Every structure is written in structure tokens, then in C-alpha cells.
């Protein structure tokens, strides 16, 4: 793992301009998101019950989750899709390790860690602006919610990558994902009821950004249900199990087809 990180540091130090640019770019991206928040509250007091500090937390969470996805989920799933297309997945299957585990930990885009740092900082600032005591339990629940959200996203991606076993040309699946993820920038409460419902239960986007941010704030004004952590736990477990089953099902199809 350390070796991988080291090589990727070297690799990318080779692209000099990128190194500086990327560090700055993460910051610029965050700045742009903060500008959006500033613009919103330049014009209004509340956005579906969310006020400026609440939105800061949400922006922070969005950035952290997006960063996590780019650090680790997207690069690995891209590689899986590539392996399926090129037929190099066979090398993975030959290794005496659980294939799902192996395909999930091969790549690591280390420089995106800045997203976690910036996002975390934004969330912390937002939370502290509320001048309310945030207890250890709240932080623990928040971290738990983030982890659950991450597990859900991981499962979604694993499922998307598994589709690659049947449809080879799915490079653009990533685009679909970011399209939907875009909707998570704002609290789901702004959407009409049916969209809210779909974003909670069909495409559990609410559990990835809105609900974690809401649990940290523990403010009824945000409209995040108090029972959200329980739902999150349930949905995370179900999606991990389902996607894992789907992966194994896909593998069977793959080895059947390429034999």
C-alpha cells in the first residue's frame, strides 16, 4: 500500500504543472462552492429550512464525499471496466484473494486527499458558526453516517462496474453517476415530494450528503429525520450485500462467456 502511494507520488511529480495546479484546483473548487452558498444567502434567509451555516456543512460534506469517491472508488472501478474490456480481469481472477476485495483496492489517487481536508474544514466551520455544543455522540454519529454513505456509494459503483460484464461500452457510466450526484449539492428538501422520496429510497442520495450533514447539526429545521442513522445502517447493509451478490453473479457470467 505504501509502495503504491510512493510510486503514485513519483509518477505524478513527473507532471510538474499538474502538481501545483491540482493543489490549487481543489481549493478553487471549494471556493466556487462557497461562492454558490454566498450567492444563495445573499438573496434569501433560508433554503428549505437550511441556513448559511447548515449549507456550509453540506458543502463540506459534499466535498468530502466527492473527494472520497475520486480518491478511491472511481479509479478502481474505472480500472475494473478497463480490465473487463481488455480481458485483463483474468489476472485478477487468478489470484488467490477475494476478487471483489482485490479490484476495490488497486488504485488510489492520493492528491485528492486535499478534498477531505478542505471539505472537513468547511464542515467544521459551518458547525462552529451555529454556536451550539456538538457532543462526541453527534460527531460519532456523523462519522458513522459518512461511512454508511460511503458504503452505499461503493455499492452503487460496484454495481455499475458489474454492468460492464454485459455491456462493454460503459465508460460513460461515470457521467451518469456525476449527473445524479449533482443533485446532492443541495439539501434534498428543496425537491418536490416525489423526487425527495426517490432520492431517499430509490437512489439513496439523501444518505450520502443531506443526512450526514443533518445529523451533525441535529437541528430539526433541516428536516432530517432523527432516525436517519438507523435507516442509513439498514440501507448500507442491504446495498453492500446486494452489490456483492451482483458482482459474483456478474463474474459467473464473465467466466462463462470468455471460456
Amino acid at each position: 500500500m505504501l509502495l503504491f502511494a510512493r510510486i503514485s507520488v513519483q509518477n505524478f511529480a513527473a507532471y510538474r504543472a499538474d502538481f501545483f495546479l491540482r493543489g490549487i484546483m481543489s481549493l478553487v473548487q471549494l471556493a466556487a462552492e462557497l461562492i454558490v452558498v454566498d450567492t444563495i444567502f445573499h438573496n434569501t434567509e433560508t433554503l428549505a429550512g437550511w441556513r448559511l451555516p447548515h449549507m456550509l456543512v453540506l458543502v463540506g460534506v459534499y466535498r468530502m464525499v466527492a473527494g472520497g469517491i475520486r480518491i478511491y472508488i472511481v479509479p478502481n472501478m474505472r480500472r475494473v471496466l478497463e480490465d473487463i474490456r481488455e480481458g485483463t480481469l483474468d489476472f485478477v481472477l487468478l489470484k488467490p484473494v477475494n476478487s471483489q476485495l482485490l479490484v476495490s483496492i488497486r488504485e488510489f489517487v492520493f492528491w485528492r486527499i486535499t478534498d477531505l481536508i478542505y471539505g472537513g474544514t468547511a464542515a467544521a466551520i459551518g458547525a462552529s458558526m451555529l454556536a451550539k455544543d456538538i457532543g462526541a455522540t453527534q460527531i460519532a454519529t456523523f462519522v458513522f453516517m459518512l461511512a454508511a454513505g460511503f458504503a452505499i456509494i461503493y455499492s452503487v459503483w460496484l454495481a455499475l462496474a458489474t454492468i460492464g460484464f454485459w455491456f462493454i461500452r460503459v465508460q460513460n457510466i461515470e457521467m451518469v453517476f456525476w449527473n445524479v450526484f449533482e443533485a446532492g449539492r443541495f439539501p434534498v428538501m428543496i425537491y418536490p415530494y416525489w423526487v425527495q422520496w426517490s432520492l431517499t429510497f430509490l437512489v439513496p442520495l439523501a444518505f450520502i450528503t443531506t443526512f450526514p450533514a443533518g445529523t451533525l447539526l441535529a437541528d430539526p429545521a433541516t428536516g432530517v429525520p432523527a432516525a436517519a442513522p438507523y435507516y442509513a445502517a439498514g440501507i448500507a447493509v442491504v446495498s453492500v450485500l446486494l452489490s456483492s451478490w451482483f458482482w459474483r453473479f456478474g463474474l459467473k457470467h464473465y467466466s462463462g462467456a470468455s471460456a
Partner: protein
Amino acid sequence: MSHLLRAFPAFLRVSIQAMLQYRGEILLWCMWGIVNPTVLYVMWSAATRGAPDGKIAGLDQNGFAVYYFFLLIVGHLTAAWDVYNMSYLVRKGQLSPLLLRPILPMWESLSSNLAYKITTLMFAAPMWLVFILITQPSFQTQWWQAGLGMIALLLGAALNYMLCYTVALVAFWTTKLDAVGEIYFGLGMLLGGRMAPVDALPPYLQIASEFLPFKWMFAFPVEVLAGMRDDVHAVTRGLLIQAAWVMLVVLVFRISWHLAVKRYSAVSG
């Protein structure tokens, strides 16, 4: 010139054929142009409910529906993306075959830009209708505004295309220009009236947008088409400013293209 008149339609024909080959991918591409304005519309219309008089920058919920409906169209028809793929062309040496031709490579890129817009219309137009059906906006656009708005749209598209292609030439000096692309796109988003109407921007952004071309690409055509601009003279002046920007950018392009090719022929080829 007559040569170009013959070559360009050929480029366009072939580009359209190529686009049709990629229709699946292109639809996904096109989807972003639908999702992003729609999400922003929903956000702003939620925000009007929290605003003191239910209006933001003079727009109520219906005003935002009209604004974002036209932004869907303007955003689609002014799209440009050379800043994203120029670095690929340069890095992979794909530019060499293009440079060997006795015609400016930009013409081929422009043809695929137009081909994209034409081929995706079949997909985008129904989505625009769906947007209307769901948001039920009531329009107040007058005929003269529609007419001048279309000219503004054309000029906006030309401006975005030319500037995007010119900025893309940075690829000749640096290996990856994803970051440049993101900044370009981000500025268009923040200052071009896409994230919010220019009038709703905080003062520091409004000032920045005054001095940059982005609002002339998107916000101005949208405002004219949406009937938000009542003064004919002001609109005409806007068209002239757009035209001036286009000319300025074309000039900058000509100089930078010359330098870019010089650079390319010094180092790679």
C-alpha cells in the same frame, strides 16, 4: 474561401455521421446540460420561498422557470469543449495529421461542435418540453425580443466557441489542461448567469462579470429571450458588445494559433 465553402460542409457531413455512431455517449453528455440547470432551477425556486417578498433579483418562481428554460436552450446551443480535448490531441500526436492538411484544424473542430448540437437536438428538445410541462412557466417574451435574442444566442455561441478554442491552445505549452478547462467552465458557471442570474450575484461577482466575456455568452441571450430586457437600445448595445468580444477573441486566436503552431513545430510534430 471557396475552398472552405466546399470543405466545411464535407466536415459537417462526416462529423454528423461520426456523432450518430456515438449517439449513446452523446446523450449522456447532453444529459448534464439538462440536469444541472434543472437542479439549479429547483434550488432557486425553493430559495424564493425563503426570500422576503418571494422574489430574488426581481424573479419569482415563474421568473426562474422561464429563466432556466431558456438557459437549457442557450446552454445547449452555446456548448464548446475544445479546452477539454485539445490536450489529448496534442499529447497523442493526433494533431500532426490535422496539421498536414491544407486547412485550419479549427474548422474540423467547429464542424463537430455543430454536428453535436444538431444530432442531440432530437434528445434535448423533448427534454425542454418536459421541463415546460412540469414547471408550467408563463412567458412574456415579445417578438422583437425573440428575434434579437436569437441573434444574441448566435453571437454567444460564437463567443464561447472561439474563446474556448483559444484557451485550449494552452495545451501546446502544458501537458494537461484539465485544470484550465475546469476554471474556464467554472467561470462560465459563476459569472455567466448559469449558477444564478447575474442580477442575483453578490456585488463582487457582478463586478467581475462586467469585465469578463462570460455573461455575454449565456446570461445576455437568456435575458433577452426570457423577455427580461425591455429596452431595445440596451439590447442592441448588448449585441454590439457581444460582436466586439467575438472580434477581439478572433484576433487573439489568430495570434495565439500562430504561436501555438510555432511551439508545436519546435518540440513535437
